[in-house]
């Protein structure tokens, strides 16, 4: 466990030693803040109309769910930049022997790396979460829905981290890792888009695999264990694949 934390801490530290992490944090925060203010503005404008409705949607439904939905897509685009260097850079700089000859197992290396990047993603999540939380100053929110949304975004980010880690273990070129992570995520996203716009729900298997499809229910406050299990399985699969991949460097070249 100690070695996992040591590796995770190093990973986080190296991230913050490069301008990349800071600029991503800044850009995400700026874009999301702009979006948040826009949503809030629209909500305030629509207040008179909402007041006439019998069972009007609250601020959580309109502003927060929308915000987290957009956050998911923005991070889908940006996360590969962060995950690409996890193992690719070690492969390219030939620093893996340091980990391989230290008394740590492959599982510990992968979990350490994963935990490191997850820590960074959780920081992004925290920074985004501060925006809707600030609404508590002026109004009351649907706490259950808010929490379910945060858990959803957290799981989405954790899945993105797992897939990014695996892609990064495949190649010594960080850019190739980034592009392929991006490709896979995009694919998992549009799987959903096409099957739902087609209006035919019988092509459900593919749509079911879509990473965002399991995100929407959580945003609207529907906390189904099946969605949680989907994400956990997704994460577990790619972590195991990464461990296998790392081990193969030792077995065969």
């Amino acid at each position, binding site marked *: 466990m100690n070695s996992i934390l040591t590796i995770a801490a190093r990973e986080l530290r190296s991230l913050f030693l490069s301008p990349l992490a800071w600029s991503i944090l800044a850009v995400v925060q700026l874009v999301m803040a702009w979006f948040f203010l826009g949503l809030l503005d629209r909500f305030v404008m629509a207040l008179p109309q909402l007041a006439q409705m019998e069972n009007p949607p609250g601020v959580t439904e309109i502003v927060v769910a929308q915000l987290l939905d957009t956050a998911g897509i923005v991070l889908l685009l940006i996360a590969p930049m962060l995950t690409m260097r996890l193992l690719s850079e070690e492969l390219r*700089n030939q620093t893996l022997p340091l980990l391989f000859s230290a008394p740590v197992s492959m599982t510990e290396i992968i979990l350490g790396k994963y935990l490191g990047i997850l820590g960074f993603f959780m920081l992004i999540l925290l920074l985004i979460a501060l925006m809707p939380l600030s609404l508590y100053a002026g109004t009351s929110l649907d706490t259950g829905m808010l929490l379910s949304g945060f858990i959803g975004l957290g799981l989405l980010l954790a899945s993105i981290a797992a897939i990014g880690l695996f892609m990064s273990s495949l190649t010594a070129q960080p850019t190739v890792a980034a592009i392929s992570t991006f490709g896979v995520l995009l694919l998992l996203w549009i799987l959903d888009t096409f099957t739902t716009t087609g209006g035919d729900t019988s092509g459900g298997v593919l749509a079911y695999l879509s990473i965002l499809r399991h995100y929407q229910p959580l945003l609207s406050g529907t906390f189904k264990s099946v969605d949680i299990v989907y994400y956990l399985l997704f994460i577990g699969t790619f972590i195991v694949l990464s461990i296998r991949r790392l081990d193969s460097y030792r077995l065969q070249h």
Partner: protein
Amino acid sequence: MNNDVLVSVDQVSRFYGPLRAVDSVSFEVRRGEVLGFLGPNGAGKTTTMQMITGNLAPSAGQIKIHGIDILDEPKRAKAEIGFLPEQPPLYRELTVDEYLSYCARLNRVPAAKLASALDNAKQRCGLTQVSHRLIGNLSKGYQQRVGIAQAIIHSPAVVILDEPTVGLDPIQIREIRALIRELGGTHSVILSTHILPEVQATCDRVQIINKGSLVMSDTIAGLTQRMLGSGLLVALRKTVELSDLQSVPGVLSVAALGENRYRLHCAENQNPAEALVEKSVQQSWGLYELTPERMSLEEVFVNITRNEAPAATPTEAAA
């Protein structure tokens, strides 16, 4: 100094696809021993070292570190190893202190001993002045030293260095060699190199690997013995008959090199130098030069690696 075996390599082979990079190599390294691992490029030195350190799994055979099998109990075995690969595994964005404390933690140095382990490693490798500098900004020589410091930070039983002096200036090379000798006192050191004088300067024992198999394993003394040729070079003021020289006891054959210089080929274990000097004085040949012919380490190396047969004897080679 006790003589326990710290590294034991038993019939280890490694294939890369159809290519046999290492072919049933066996050897042992004892405590306090510095083993030089020599071989031409692509002979399998690095592959062997990667297998000993657990960076590569052997295709066949067994490797034990301090009696612990590296495949069965990799964590315990690896705790006994410090490894400097050919390319030092450095994180350029960290400072020397940050990097070394990371390595120490990875190698399970207890938190209480962290600071002293760090100081000790830095001091031994002459890094104290650059503690707070970024590794990426250090010169190649200093980076190499950081690499060595990384390998010894947890004072492992076995230190394995793959070409540690590449890219260093002559003064740094001397310092690193001294450091390796010093390490040999308490640890076992395996050192790969293709710089031959380095082996003579630092090692107790030498192994030569060629095309994946061990072709020679000998102590430095044994190697020096091999280098001792069986010829004498003689220069005289006076021209003499070859038969006169031949008549000196112990001389097998004589070759004239021109300008009154001769090469005497002598019987093994019989040095005719004394007899030759006496005879020269008696007959006033005017002997002014008498040199025992020595093979350089290079010649021994070339002979061994060129001939497929294990350990061609130096006498044959010199003849």
